């Protein structure tokens, strides 16, 4: 039986034995050095620099000039930024609502050992293999109102003439759909792993007590997948807050600014307008929001406590 969670109730003798070869104790801090240094240089330092740049005016050449709070007051007054934050939040919530149930059901289904499931799963995971940019280009062609698939199915969806990307709701829906199509397989994979780790004996016991498939799903599978759901949700939420390439290729933030979510706003200010100070302020907001949301998720779900889902087994 897999004993994934360290319950901390193991006898001490075992703990001593579980240390590797005699004499080599717990690895020293030196072992973490390469990874830690990489993390500091390539993650922490840039983030700190971006935070500093947010208080400057810099066009990417020469030296940044200190402007204090001016970027922030501009952020506060800019309706485009408000719209972007709002759109990002809506997109994140809808992404979660749309992707989680689907990914969970598919993952649980794919966890079965039947051969046809393995084959179908393999086909289904294909979107994971493509690069975001290439996939977005394919979808862009499919959404061409004159030659794409949308020309035929658009009228049924309420978009006469296939004018999906030209309407605010349609363009937003397209981004929601394409990213879901692209990322549900990843989350399905996570749920599949989680579902496979649930001990058979639980189901056997439930079956003896007369629980049917549905009852087993709600009483065993879902509670056992609690930590998996949190993990997948954190990845999904942070991912949704930082969607970029799909938006760049499918809609360019349009029509107008109606799909300009925060990362795209950052790109527009940073790499089209070369207003790197302002773009850094936008980026800082994004870092703060994403960190807060994932911390909240971890905190509120008791995930951090790593409470075992197998008390008493």
């Amino acid at each position, binding site marked *: 039986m897999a004993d994934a969670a360290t319950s901390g109730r193991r006898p001490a003798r075992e703990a001593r034995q579980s240390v590797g070869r005699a*004499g*080599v104790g717990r690895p*020293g801090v*030196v*072992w973490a*050095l*390469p990874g830690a*240094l*990489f993390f500091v*240089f*390539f993650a922490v330092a840039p983030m700190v620099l971006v935070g500093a740049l947010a208080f400057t005016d810099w*066009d*990417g*050449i*020469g030296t940044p000039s200190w402007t204090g709070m001016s970027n922030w007051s501009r952020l506060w007054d800019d309706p485009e930024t408000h719209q972007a934050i709002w759109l990002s939040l809506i997109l994140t919530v809808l992404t979660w609502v749309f992707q989680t149930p689907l990914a969970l059901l598919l993952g649980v289904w794919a966890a079965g050992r039947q051969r046809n499931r393995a084959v179908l799963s393999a086909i289904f995971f294909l979107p994971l293999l493509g690069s975001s940019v290439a996939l977005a*280009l394919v979808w*862009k*062609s499919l*959404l*061409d*109102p*004159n*030659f794409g698939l*949308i020309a035929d199915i658009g009228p049924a969806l309420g978009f*006469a*003439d*296939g*004018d*999906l*990307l*030209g*309407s605010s709701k349609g363009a937003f829906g397209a981004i929601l759909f394409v990213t879901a199509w692209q990322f549900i397989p990843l989350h399905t994979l996570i749920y599949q792993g989680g579902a496979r780790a649930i001990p058979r004996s639980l189901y056997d016991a439930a079956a003896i007590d007369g629980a049917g498939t549905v009852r087993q799903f709600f009483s065993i599978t879902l509670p056992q997948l609690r930590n998996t759901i949190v993990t997948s949700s954190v990845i999904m939420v942070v991912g949704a807050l930082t969607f970029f390439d799909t938006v760049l290729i499918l*809609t*360019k933030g*349009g*029509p*107008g*600014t109606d799909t300009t979510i925060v990362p795209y706003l950052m790109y*527009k*200010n940073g*790499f*089209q*307008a*070369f*207003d790197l100070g302002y773009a850094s302020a936008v980026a800082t907001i994004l870092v703060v929001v994403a960190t807060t949301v994932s911390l909240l998720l971890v905190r509120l779900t008791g995930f951090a406590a790593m409470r075992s889902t197998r008390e008493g087994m």
Partner: protein
Amino acid sequence: MRIPRSRSRSRSRSRSKSTLRASTLTAAALLVGTALTGCGSGGPGGSDDGSLDVWVYQDASTKVQREVVKRFNKTSDIKVKLTQVPGEGYSDKMRTSMGTPNAPDVFFNWGGGSISDFVKKDMLLDLDPSMAKDPELKKAFIPTILDAGAIDGKHYGIPMRGMQPVILFYNKDVFEKAGAQPPKSWDDLLTLIDTFKDKGVTPFALAGTDAWTELMWVEYLVDRYGGAGVFQKIQSQGMAAWDDPAVLKAAQTVRDLVGRGAFGKNYKSVNYTADGASTLFAKGKAAMHLMGSWEYANQKANQPAFAKSGLGWTTFPAVPGGSGDPKSVVGNPTNYWSVNAKVKGDKQKTAIEFVKFAAKQDYSKDLIANGDVPTTSDATSLLAEHENPDYARFQYDLVKQAPDFTLSWDQALPAKYTPPLHTAVQKLFNGQLSPTGFIDALKGM
């Protein structure tokens, strides 16, 4: 019973432990070392071997530059090292490297707004003294093209690629079926809209997801209503100058065209980059397409039969009551070589010699062989060599006779105006902004 600890074992163990620790430290140091130097010497540029660093935008036309570098290196003591930067990342890379030791010595650019920030910081070499010393150099190019790359009347760029004016293309087969003629006046154009709409054909293909295609319409209309001076005033006096009546008239005309169905019903979803608009046009579902001269090469690549026999071209008509010269052109005059101001002495001489190669006949011949139309003033005799001499001649004469060649606004203005300009134009076309709202948005940039 206690087993005496073997000394040798303990020693060997401690040694292995210390060697382990040492090697880990070394590895970490090495990693950090490479990580740190990686930022410094990773990219191209900053060559200390005395060669001249030349950066170029990498696409289908880059082979012309590769050839000229080969030729140049045969004659020069200081060799040119050509760095080809893949298209997408070029402007970011150019911008981030300028002002660092890794900056290129000579580099490709779009003139106007793409270099105005460098000029402000005195990072580019003013080429006027060289032109004064060598009058042939200045005379080698069509004046409007040379001036389109100038900033505040000083020349920082030497034209080095083909011309790219915006042309009104039309589908010959569709016109023949409708018994129609290409529009000579604005009235013709409005009549044609109705003619084609009755036939179930979209009058003008328009890629509404790419705002720069819509911008071409606004640029031409402003030019026809008020002349090239309107935009020159905006460039020199700032954003307040957008409230010129010509801009308002152009915006109203755009709304009028959209209302008449000039662009069909679903233009807002049509793209240029994935070939949506061009296919629509080539397949005869749209009759006309206002697009840069690269449309020909694009059609040749994707719809070769249409490019060969079905593609027609004409000029953008005059508008009623407009004061602009209908011979004027908008678009991208060409691309330019600029020289970094930090290049001094012999290297500077070599750099100037190198950019002069773009004025030579054999360079123009290479451009023509590549399907481009050169911007040199003596290229007329060479145009017969072009794969489509009629098209090359039309383009060349169009540009040569144009009293003004206005650089695309999103290229001409400093980079910070590009996103809001694109947004405003797209909103105007989509009806999210009224003509007056459009003016306000532009003034507020």
